[in-house]
């Protein structure tokens, strides 16, 4: 029997894993799909929320504010790109003042500092390209942006280096109470542990409901997005929100840490927890609302579209902590927005709680520092020359659009909790995320995966399962050697 099983490899599961790895505990993380960061964590707006949006007294509010304050330290320790570029909640037209005041008051109640309402002059000085009907805005000085998949990846790597075991394709099919703990049945085998942590995102209701009578229901809330080319990186400085609706924070126009611009998301409750499709209706809605903020959206300069499913809980709040009727079963359920912002705080909260209950001590040799894969595109010429002489694979550029080298791609596969698929490489290196959307790099990326994983091109997938690239070789492999 091990100490802790964590169910779910998104940003929450990986944050909990890393925080638990500070302690003298045996921890395993079970991820349903072929890779970590395959759910909400890879498909969101990448915002570090200020904390004015959540209702005071909720866990969302508490952990948003706590988490926000931890970002400097965590991103420094884990080498994750982030930026304090501020947020603006903009009222288009003159009738939004009351709502902006309400959000400001809410923020103050939640303990957020640096909130103020700004008028036309300052708004247009900060954002000269904002839409003509923008009237005034709530300035959120502690708002920021982060790379959500690099954060998740960094948490996972650091956890692994500090002893956490990761299992992929390990969908949990049953959790049962046994003497001394829990029996967790999964597609990667059966585990027994003293404690279980439910970080299963969209399926956190399914997992919770296996053990607790305090039932939860998660409704997938789909959000669709556009990504606009890096050429427009300087259009907007802050993350530009519109007034929130009852479905969520509304449609944003926000720069990302990579220099692209995100438009979205919509908010649509659906039935199917696997339906990450984009729709004509959803995408047109994004453009319709985003046009208020950005009147001249360059429609010929979209890089791609995507959609993400939020794990919206029927309780309208996070469900964190020990289940009331299931001792040593801990929930981090219903973690939708502001989950990304809250993740550092949730990780610490649950880890401390579990470590305390298991009466465990902190490790002496815990290493909190994780260095990301050195990025060729960010190096100076001297650094590049040095990198190449140490590793000639740094001279071979595979992804032209994002300037990603072979060295980085191989490293992405070789690292702890490394890439096993093309999308895995994409999230860890940005190869394939650029304007040509992997048109140029795909053939070489396939080859590198084959070399590193010792598989044939017929086995390479985009994201595990059936998502294969190659159907067959041109010619039957075979015995005809007629020359």
């Amino acid at each position, binding site marked *: 029997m091990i100490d802790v099983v964590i169910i779910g490899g998104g940003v929450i599961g990986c944050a909990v894993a890393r925080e638990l790895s500070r302690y003298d505990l045996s921890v395993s993380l079970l991820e349903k799909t072929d890779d970590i960061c395959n759910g909400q964590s890879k498909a969101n707006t990448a915002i570090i929320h200020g904390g004015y949006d959540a209702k005071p007294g909720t866990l969302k509010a508490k952990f948003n504010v706590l988490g926000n304050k931890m970002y400097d330290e965590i991103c420094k320790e884990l080498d994750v790109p982030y930026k304090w570029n501020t947020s603006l909640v903009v009222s288009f037209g003159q009738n939004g003042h009351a709502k902006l005041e309400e959000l400001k008051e809410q923020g103050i109640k939640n303990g957020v500092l640096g909130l103020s309402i700004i008028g036309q002059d300052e708004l247009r000085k900060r954002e000269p390209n904002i839409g003509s009907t923008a009237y005034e805005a709530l300035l959120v000085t502690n708002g920021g942006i982060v790379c959500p998949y690099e954060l998740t990846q960094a948490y996972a790597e650091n956890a692994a280096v500090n002893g956490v075991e990761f299992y992929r394709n390990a969908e949990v099919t049953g959790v049962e109470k046994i003497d001394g703990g829990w029996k967790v049945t999964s597609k990667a085998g059966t585990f027994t542990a003293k404690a279980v942590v439910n970080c299963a995102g969209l399926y956190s209701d399914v997992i919770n409901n296996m053990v607790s009578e305090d039932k939860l229901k998660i409704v997938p809330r789909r959000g669709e997005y556009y990504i606009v080319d890096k050429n427009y990186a300087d259009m907007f400085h802050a993350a530009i929100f519109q007034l929130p609706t009852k479905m969520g924070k509304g449609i944003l126009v926000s720069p990302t840490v990579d220099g692209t611009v995100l438009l979205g998301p919509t908010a649509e409750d659906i039935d199917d927890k696997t339906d990450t499709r984009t729709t004509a209706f959803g995408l047109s809605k994004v453009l319709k609302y985003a046009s208020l903020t950005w009147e001249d959206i360059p429609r010929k300069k979209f890089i791609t579209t995507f959609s993400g499913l939020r794990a919206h809980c029927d309780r309208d709040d996070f469900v964190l902590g020990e289940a009331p009727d299931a001792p040593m079963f801990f929930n981090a359920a219903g973690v939708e927005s502001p989950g990304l912002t809250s993740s550092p705080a949730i990780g610490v909260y649950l880890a401390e709680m579990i470590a305390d209950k298991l009466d465990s001590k902190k490790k002496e040799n815990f290493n909190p520092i994780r260095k990301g894969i050195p990025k060729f595109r960010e190096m100076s010429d001297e650094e590049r020359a040095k990198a190449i002489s140490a590793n000639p694979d740094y001279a071979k550029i595979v992804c032209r659009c994002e300037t990603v080298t072979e060295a980085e791609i191989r490293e992405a596969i070789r690292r702890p909790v490394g890439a096993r698929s093309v999308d895995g490489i994409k999230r860890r290196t940005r190869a394939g995320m650029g304007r040509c959307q992997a048109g140029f790099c795909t053939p070489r990326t396939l080859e590198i995966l084959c070399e590193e994983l010792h598989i044939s*091109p017929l086995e390479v997938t985009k994201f595990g399962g059936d998502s294969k690239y190659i159907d067959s070789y*041109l010619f039957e492999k075979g015995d*005809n050697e*007629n*020359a």
Partner: protein
Amino acid sequence: MKREITCIGCPMGCRITAEVDGKDIVSIEGYTCNIGKKYAQEELTVPTRMVTALMKVYGTNQPISVKTSQPIEKSKIFDCLKEISKHTVMRPVQIGEVLLKNVCGTQVNIIATKELE
């Protein structure tokens, strides 16, 4: 039998219709220049095509590009491809080298269009 084709002699792409009896053209109309007339006459009786294809190279998955040394009868294209697919080539190969003689009895050869060292 009534036949209709698009002329490829120039971007006009005239539609040419004809009455064809086996290998004889009984009547033909729709062409607007001599290039079209000549193209149609050939295309409607014994259409031919240059075929470019890929052939297996021993010891690798990477194929070599090949072509027919002259156009072959359109009706023989798939037989020709089938015969090509049965062959494996050994390096080295020069551009223009004959890799397969008299493919499908057409008197036409399959030649390499790429050099392999």
